């Protein structure tokens, strides 16, 4: 059973820094005949976009996820039946605390001249703009020391973070756990991941589950830089340690991840988008990457911006989509890898939070968006991997695949009009078994940042309705002023559709079949159907 093996790996601490090649393989799916006329009742593994040779990604959630889910379930319940006095007391404490702390901060402002943080960070935390941000995220240590804030500086917020810490301890003192506070359109969500505490203050009506997931991403982002082993080690050594020393320079990674969480449906759906590419070209790229292997190479990943071109992995080793998103984020938020060939330790926390992999990260050409990530277990492997990259490039060029790759990259993805469904503005389709999703270019009304985030927010709400553990839904249709939305989940896929306000429910329902047929027809191009291993 994959879960059990995975669990074993998670607890396999291994050598301090190095990752062992744990076996994370889900049992390979049998090759199934592909159905010609897909229906919404498709079973997992036969839906459009399903891989032919089993999956590239870890399917099941890790042991940690599974236990975390059950925890949060029980807590959701307890929150509902929970003592309402306690909740309101907490709210009052928070409000009161905020005022107090704000007063205290004004005195401190003078001392904080010597700060090397970016301008965006130097926001006055007493100002109305600071308060009106839609999504605040704070990270602190169990000693209450500030580690990260999305807006403003940590120093200026030390007293607020102290209050958060206090809140947690008061509740924990009574053998309880504080999960969230709902008040006045705000949700304050707490996540304790020892030795860290994450708190989100959101202006949203998404479920706590969704919001906790976002905090988890931030937690794993920090682990990916340090490993859990090092994190624990540091705080065991000195509880009051200022973790910002070790995280210096990584704030923009976290900032960028928070932006991705607002804009990239992949993080919401636990899936990755592929670069649309003719299957012959993709196979050529994959096989070239497969041929350029090295002894300790575990994953070879070719990215085009935030889209996956191909992923080749060591046999029996699976990447978790979350780890892949963290890699996307690392590459996407730094120009550092354009300076030369990057060589960095990186922990893939879902694979194994205890140790570092070593990643060779470089762009195929200085001005290109194609970025190659080669992940090895050996920290001395730089020149071997550099050589792998060279061999890969030579092979690509010899077979003229580089050109077609570059062309595909320059083309826009595809307009939604190609599907030929009236009133359809946008959709997101995820094939569950492959962990890949596809989505057309954003149409005009959603191209601005604000509008994009609004659309993603709508999808997120639908997602949170469909996946509510106490009330699972199969589909949901929602009419709003500016668009009509239809979301559908089956054992094989998840689909989110956005129609103009002129769309009707019957149109939406009939669109599903048409869209599935279209995706089936195009799946060669939109998905990676035959993932390779070394």
């Amino acid at each position, binding site marked *: 059973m994959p879960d059990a093996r995975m669990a074993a790996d998670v607890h396999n601490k291994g050598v301090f820094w190095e990752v062992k090649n744990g076996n994370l393989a889900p049992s390979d799916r049998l090759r199934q005949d592909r159905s010609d006329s897909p229906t919404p009742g498709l079973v997992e593994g036969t839906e459009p976009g399903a891989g032919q040779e089993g999956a590239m990604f870890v399917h099941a959630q890790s042991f940690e996820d599974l236990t975390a889910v059950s925890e949060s379930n029980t807590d959701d319940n307890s929150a509902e039946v929970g003592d309402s006095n306690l909740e309101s007391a907490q709210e009052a404490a928070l409000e009161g605390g905020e005022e107090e702390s704000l007063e205290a901060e004004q005195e401190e402002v003078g001392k904080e001249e010597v700060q*090397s943080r*970016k301008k965006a960070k130097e926001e006055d935390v007493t100002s109305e703009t600071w308060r009106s941000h839609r999504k605040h995220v704070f990270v602190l240590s169990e000693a209450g020391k500030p580690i990260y804030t999305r807006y403003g500086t940590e120093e200026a917020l030390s007293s607020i973070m102290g209050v958060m810490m206090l809140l947690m301890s008061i509740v924990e003192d009574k053998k309880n756990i504080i999960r969230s506070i709902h008040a006045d359109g705000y949700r304050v969500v707490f996540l304790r991941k020892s030795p860290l505490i994450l708190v989100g203050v959101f202006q949203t009506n998404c479920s706590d589950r969704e919001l906790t997931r976002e905090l988890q991403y931030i937690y794993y982002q920090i682990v990916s830089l340090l490993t859990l082993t090092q994190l624990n080690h540091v705080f065991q050594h000195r509880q009051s340690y200022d973790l910002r020393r070790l995280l210096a320079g990584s704030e923009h990674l976290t900032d960028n991840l928070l932006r991705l969480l607002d804009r990239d449906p992949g993080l919401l759906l636990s899936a990755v988008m592929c670069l649309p590419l003719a299957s012959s070209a993709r196979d050529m790229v994959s096989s070239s990457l497969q041929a350029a292997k090295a002894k300790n190479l575990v994953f070879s990943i070719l990215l085009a911006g935030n889209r996956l071109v191909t992923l080749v992995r060591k046999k029996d080793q699976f990447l978790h989509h979350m780890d892949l998103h963290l890699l996307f984020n690392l590459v996407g938020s*730094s120009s*550092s890898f354009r300076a*030369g060939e990057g*060589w960095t330790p990186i922990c893939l926390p879902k694979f194994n939070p205890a140790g570092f992999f070593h*990643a060779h990260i470089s762009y195929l050409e200085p001005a290109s968006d194609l970025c190659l990530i080669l992940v090895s277990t050996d920290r001395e492997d730089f*020149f071997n991997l550099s050589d792998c*990259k060279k061999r890969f490039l030579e092979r690509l060029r010899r077979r003229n695949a580089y050109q077609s790759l570059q062309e595909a990259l320059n083309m826009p993805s595809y307009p939604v009009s190609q599907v030929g469904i009236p009133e359809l503005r946008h959709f997101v389709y995820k094939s569950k078994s492959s962990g890949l999703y596809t989505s057309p270019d954003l149409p005009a009304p959603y191209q601005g940042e604000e509008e994009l985030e609004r659309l993603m927010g709508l999808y997120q709400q639908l997602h949170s309705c469909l996946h509510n553990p106490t009330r699972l839904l199969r589909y949901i249709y929602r009419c709003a002023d500016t668009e009509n939305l239809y979301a559908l989940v089956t054992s094989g896929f998840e689909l989110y559709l956005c129609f103009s306000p002129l769309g009707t429910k019957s149109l939406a329902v009939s669109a599903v079949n048409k869209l599935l047929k279209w995706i089936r027809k195009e799946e060669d191009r939109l998905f990676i159907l035959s993932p390779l291993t070394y």
Partner: protein
Amino acid sequence: MTAMRVDAKVVMLGKESVGKTSLVERYVHRRFLVGPYQNTIGAAFVAKALNVSDKVVTLGIWDTAGSERYEAMSRIYYRGARAAIVCYDLTDSSSFKRARFWVKELQNCEEHCKIYLCGTKSDLIEADRSVRQVDYHDVQDFAEEIGAQHFETSSKTGKNVDEVFQKVADDFSSCALEFMQEEKGVDLEQKKDSYFDNCCHN
């Protein structure tokens, strides 16, 4: 099995944001990128070939991240390095303290690695003398004490940047000549010539 022929491994060390990447950018790509500060993640490797008298020497330059997070890893970057360019920010005295730390580390672990102290952002000093926090003569004394070379550079204007790397390559190649001398007995005159040439350049 190496991907490229590299004659000498050169490592850039120093506190974060002193401008190690900018120095390499300026030297290798002849550019200075203006924009928000981007810290290096792990380390970046570039190979650069340059002429020393009539020979070509390829420097493999490891531009390391200054962040403390990577300190435990730093050994893999400087191990076996023939030269270390230890950078500090002329306008930040704490960065010089950090430079001393790296010098000590190198002296303990890599005795064959030549050290080049490099004060960065000299254009800021030229614009306003009062921002200087690290005295030229103090560093000069320190450099003599540890047998290091000392430069003050500006990646923005390009001042002294080529000189640092040229000196690294010259020293490497004359050092290599010394080795060769023992084995093959290379013409001493030739070496002297190139040595005097360098003096004139400086």
